């Protein structure tokens, strides 16, 4: 286990928590990302400037980390569109049907001890673990 495996994720988690907390202090809102994006896909509500600002902050955060770390952010992602497109559709559709994603249910919901979020998080974690394990077994 390297420092990158443990300390950076812990620090990153605290930063995520600070972002979620600041959004509650300043706007009285939960930092559920799928819900915030969803608002901007329909008729824009009066609070659209804040929703848009929060969403714009996300890619800015990646750019800031590139600046602070002094290296470009590298990711490893399949380039298979036959996997990416259905996965994107499922994530978009599923998070809205289930009213939350990893941030809304997994962080904000669990932080306020919501039973619905606990169930949702248990389900999406279990299914995702099953899918990855199956893929691993087949490869």
């Amino acid at each position, binding site marked *: 286990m390297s420092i990158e*495996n*443990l300390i950076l*994720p812990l620090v*990153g*988690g*605290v*930063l*995520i*928590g*600070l*972002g*979620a*907390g*600041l*959004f509650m*202090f*300043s706007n*009285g809102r939960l*930092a559920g*990302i799928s819900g915030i994006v969803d608002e901007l*896909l329909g008729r824009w509500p009066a609070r659209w400037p*804040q929703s848009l*600002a*929060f969403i*714009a*902050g*996300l*890619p*800015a*955060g*990646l*750019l*800031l*980390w590139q600046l602070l770390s002094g290296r470009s*952010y*590298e*990711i*490893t*992602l399949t380039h298979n*569109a036959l*996997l*990416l*497109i*259905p*996965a*994107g*559709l499922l*994530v*978009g559709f599923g998070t809205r049907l*289930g009213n939350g*994603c990893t941030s809304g249910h997994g*962080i904000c919901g669990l*932080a306020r001890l919501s*039973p619905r979020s606990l*169930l949702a998080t248990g389900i*999406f974690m279990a*299914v*995702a673990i099953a899918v*990855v*394990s199956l893929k691993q077994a087949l490869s």
Partner: protein
Amino acid sequence: MKTSLALLSGLLFGLGLAVSGMADPKVVQGFLDVGGIWRGDWNPALAMVMIGAIPTTALLYRMAGDMPPPPSREITRRLVLGSALFGLGWGLVGICPGPALENWLADPIALTFLLPMLAGMALARLVPAGKN
């Protein structure tokens, strides 16, 4: 003021996703691949993120006091089915909505995920709400 603080909130959140490695699908899949616990190559990053994020959020929420009420308290079929479909897509490539909104900067191929994700969200609006 509210808008600039919303931007700062998103910036902190997005920075956290990047710092923690959550914007990299390989790190997320390395966590979801629990067989790694026995093989010795499991990546605990996502667990560490939760350990950092949930107590921090809980503490700040407590300090903030009044919070918006949950949209619903009921366990619905929507919640169960939606979360299962999300888990399926998440497991397939290792991207969830937050990372999807920033990791296209690292590899534009991620837009092949982000755009269908937005379409999927729009599609879910067609599912009638109500007691299901």
